[in-house]
């Protein structure tokens, strides 16, 4: 009899380990958080910033006693920007490593692959960077995959904000697009055109070119676009590719011929650092505009200042938006677990839906319909400011989030 109970006990604990399940009432001693992002290649700084942001939050929480006494532990994997790798990572982290919570992920293709496997893994996932509107509009709102949350602002920032700013430049009539040859670039350009057309029927879209990942040389794209003599350029390549694109544009004299260049994610710290020399030398002649999903010099609040101070002290760098979103994601987990005293997916989903939470980038509100965090990020000119060691966004335009976020029922983009 004793032997049978022993075997049963072992079997039960095996089942327990395998399922990764947690009893409803109490939390495990260690809460495991699985993150992933791109940590190699031209876009690698985003994954690194995710690690730095999340680590800062986890260390703070653990130093203060953890979440209801449970310590946090993180594992972070390289998604390599490949959907198949990211799905494998997510499965590994949940099924083998035993992650209770998931966060991270850059790039549209990757998030659209990871999103649909979450119900099967029975975990919530806070996306911290991937920005296609389809993640929240289609997968959450239309298909009802409730495990998905997104803490970073989607392409509304890249496209609708741009249209709402530049509609007030009556002399700019000819727009050209240099866009990423994948979901993010296509959807940004489509949303920009649709919004701009609504405000300014007189505007023409004179050229569009597409650049896949690993485009080393943008000069053919630039010369093709400049052949159509645009007044302004709308551009979405990001990270190292954005830096090289802008540098090649300078070589081709593009900034002598246009009035405005919108570099959607040009307000990202890695891009700003890469362009420091050119910005300081005023090579862009005040024509380069950009935004990000959080910028360190806004909002001017004690929360944000404290965050920047801690981050600089710990990592000796300014936080990029993927750092702020990852840092905040960990605190969203904390708030949700403290509310439910549980790691059960269904309960956590209920806790985050409608949550309002103070973050360094300002208060975020998780819309229950599409699980998208609503918060405002300004846009501005890329300028040199002696107060900072890297270029910053200046002459900020602050448009309230309510005005530029798309809202349910999300009419299709024409």
């Amino acid at each position: 009899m004793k032997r049978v109970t022993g075997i049963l006990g072992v079997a039960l604990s095996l089942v327990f380990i395998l399922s990764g399940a947690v009893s409803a009432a109490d939390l495990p001693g260690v809460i495991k958080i699985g993150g992933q992002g791109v940590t190699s290649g031209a876009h690698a700084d985003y994954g690194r910033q995710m690690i730095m942001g999340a680590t800062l939050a986890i260390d703070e929480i653990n130093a203060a006693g953890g979440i209801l006494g449970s310590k946090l532990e993180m594992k972070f994997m390289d998604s390599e920007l490949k959907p198949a790798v990211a799905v494998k990572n997510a499965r590994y982290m949940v099924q083998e490593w035993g992650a209770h919570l998931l966060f991270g992920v850059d790039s549209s293709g990757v998030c659209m692959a990871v999103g649909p496997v979450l119900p099967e893994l029975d975990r919530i996932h806070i996306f911290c960077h991937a920005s296609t509107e389809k993640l929240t509009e289609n997968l959450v709102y239309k298909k009802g995959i409730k495990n998905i949350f997104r803490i970073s602002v989607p392409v509304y920032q890249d496209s609708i904000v741009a249209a709402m700013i530049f509609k007030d430049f009556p002399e700019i009539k000819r727009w050209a697009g240099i866009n990423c040859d994948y979901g993010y670039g296509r959807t940004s350009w489509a949303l920009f055109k649709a919004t701009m057309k609504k405000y300014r029927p007189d505007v023409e879209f004179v050229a569009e070119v597409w650049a896949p990942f690993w485009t080393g040389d943008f000069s053919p794209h630039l010369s093709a676009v400049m052949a159509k003599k645009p007044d302004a350029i709308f551009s979405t390549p990001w990270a190292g590719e954005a830096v090289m694109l802008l540098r090649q544009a300078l070589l081709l004299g593009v900034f002598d011929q246009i009035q405005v260049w919108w570099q959607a994610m040009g307000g990202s710290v890695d891009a700003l650092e890469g362009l420091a020399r050119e910005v300081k030398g005023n090579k862009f002649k005040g024509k380069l505009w950009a935004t990000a999903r959080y910028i360190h010099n806004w909002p001017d609040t004690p929360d944000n200042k404290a965050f920047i101070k801690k981050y600089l002290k710990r990592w000796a760098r300014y936080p990029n938006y993927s750092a702020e979103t990852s840092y905040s994601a960990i605190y969203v987990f904390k708030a949700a677990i403290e509310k439910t005293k549980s790691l059960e997916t269904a309960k956590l989903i209920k806790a985050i839906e409608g949550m309002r939470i103070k973050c360094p980038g300002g208060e975020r509100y998780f819309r229950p319909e599409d699980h998208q965090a609503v918060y405002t990020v300004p846009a501005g000119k890329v300028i040199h400011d002696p107060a900072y060691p890297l270029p910053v966004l200046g002459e900020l335009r602050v448009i309230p989030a309510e005005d530029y976020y798309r809202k349910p029922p999300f009419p299709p983009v024409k």
Partner: protein
Amino acid sequence: MRGELVNWLSPQNNTPTLPSPFKGEGLSGGKRKTMETLAFQGLVGLSLAMYLWLIAAGLTIVFGVLGILNFAHGSLFMLGAYFAFTFYGLLGINFWLSILLSVIGVGLVGLVMERFFLRFIYHLDVAYQLLLTFGFILIFDDAVKMIWGGVFMIPPMPDFFTGAISIFGRLFPVYNLFIIGAGIGVAIALWLILERTWWGRIIRASASDREMASAIGVNIPILFTAVFMFGAALAALGGALSTPVRVVAPGIGGAIIIQAFVVTVIGGLGNLKGAFAGAVIVGVLTAYGILLFPIFELFIIFVVMAVVLLVKPEGLFGG
């Protein structure tokens, strides 16, 4: 190519908005503009082609002489870029000297690859070559991540290259012009070496009949090592020259080797003229694809490759 040297900082360069090339003009003026647009785009494509040529040249020489299809050839391009970045961007060494040091450094990496690894598999099935050289890609990528980190690097641009020249009424970067010159220079130098020197005759002899060359006293092992080092050095030259305008990051080797394969398949593997022609075709077609068919630009290159494979499987200059 006559034109005045202008810097994009100079005020006379603030071209007011010119009329559009495609509308609101007389037919002849419009046609001329269109021709100029095409010519300009072709020139941009030519500068794109020169990086491909430098890679494909080494790839094809190594294949022609050693019979090795070196998958890791793109990684040598990447190493060339990293070495040049380290010497020029980090250590502040003179730009030209940095390129030279990078070429020598990668040549030495090639020495190690050939002498201690490839040499032992010449007699084995071709699958072993592919496996071994593919393994090198993974090793080099990880080594680069360990030494320089996974994050991209943006090397500084030498100041003397930041200007542009007015061609067809538009500004063409001095650097792209320099790349075109360098690519053509390498092509002429390679032709002279292979056709006019003793070394070239030995290489050509060994490529056409290894055993006969050996029988008349050519030291084949040393020749193989030297040729492999030379191929590696050419890849490194391409990588080093790319650093002022391209991102340096792990993975750039894998991205460019695919294009280099397309170039050699179109031109004919093992044929230098073919590599040059293939590079020009791929570079210029890519540029025109982006201008004229922006949605299909990647597709066009592979269509051309497929057509060449169907009509002349040995490549345009092969066989």
